[in-house]
């Protein structure tokens, strides 16, 4: 494939492919953030052990699962 052909193929693609890639990158970053939030919540609950600590970790886990779900949703419906 020549460089001209590659450029022609890229130009023939719908602009929504690029928008989709941007969206997926953003959601991947959010997924990373959700994972950091879960890890940090676990660290915090070790520093202060309270009765509600497991509930807080569970909420952070739900948040991470939500981020995974959203990423997969974006992969399939965008």
């Amino acid at each position, binding site marked *: 494939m020549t460089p001209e052909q590659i450029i022609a193929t890229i130009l023939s693609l719908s602009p929504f492919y690029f928008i989709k890639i941007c969206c997926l990158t953003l959601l991947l970053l959010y997924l990373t953030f959700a994972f950091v939030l879960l890890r940090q*919540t676990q660290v915090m*609950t070790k*520093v*202060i052990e*309270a009765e509600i600590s497991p509930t*807080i970790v569970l*909420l952070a886990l739900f948040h991470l699962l939500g981020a995974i779900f*959203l990423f997969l*949703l974006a992969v399939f419906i965008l």
Partner: protein
Amino acid sequence: MPEIFVAPKKIEERPKEKTLTPKKIPSLPRGEKQATNPFSAFAVMPAGIRFETQEEEEEIVLILRRHSITNLGWILFALLLLTLPPFIFPSISFLEAWPEQIPRGYLAVAFVFWYLATFGFILIEFIMWYFNVSIVTNQRVIDIDFFNLLYKKFSSTRIDRVEDVTFRLGGFIRAFFDYGDVYVQTAGTEINFQFLAVPHPERAVRIIIDIMGEEEPKPE
């Protein structure tokens, strides 16, 4: 030849190890009730709470967080974020404001992302409030600060190193809701503690002074 004088052998004294001296387990501070609410910002002898470096004989006397009213700003913002999508997204759909060329899937993903990010925002704000605590035990004063999700500061000093405890309460809102800043000054080069925007600063100071009084050696 008989020895006239024999110097007594020096008994080497081992340097005393610096350990936390066991203190008696405190009773409930006078005029205070034991906290039962796990979300209390002023919890006296809270049950079921431990911290990372807590010694076996160490008992938590007081846990302080920022006054709950200081959370009002982010709570209102979160409520706004929660109530906006039912107005914004249908209006985009019904008013045909959404360009035809853009697939509707983006709208659905944006809708879910909005609520997920709002949930994340609420969670962060809550844990930053809940885990930023100042703890007074029968042996130490401890300040645990999480400045953001990635940076933690843990500082503590023994209660017998505390030299002065003061509080500052000023302004209409602070006076109305009875919250202010408590300053714990320690001896020498040790760090000083600031418990900012904590509820009932006067009671907090009294409790710390009471514990300091228990620690002072009694005259014989």
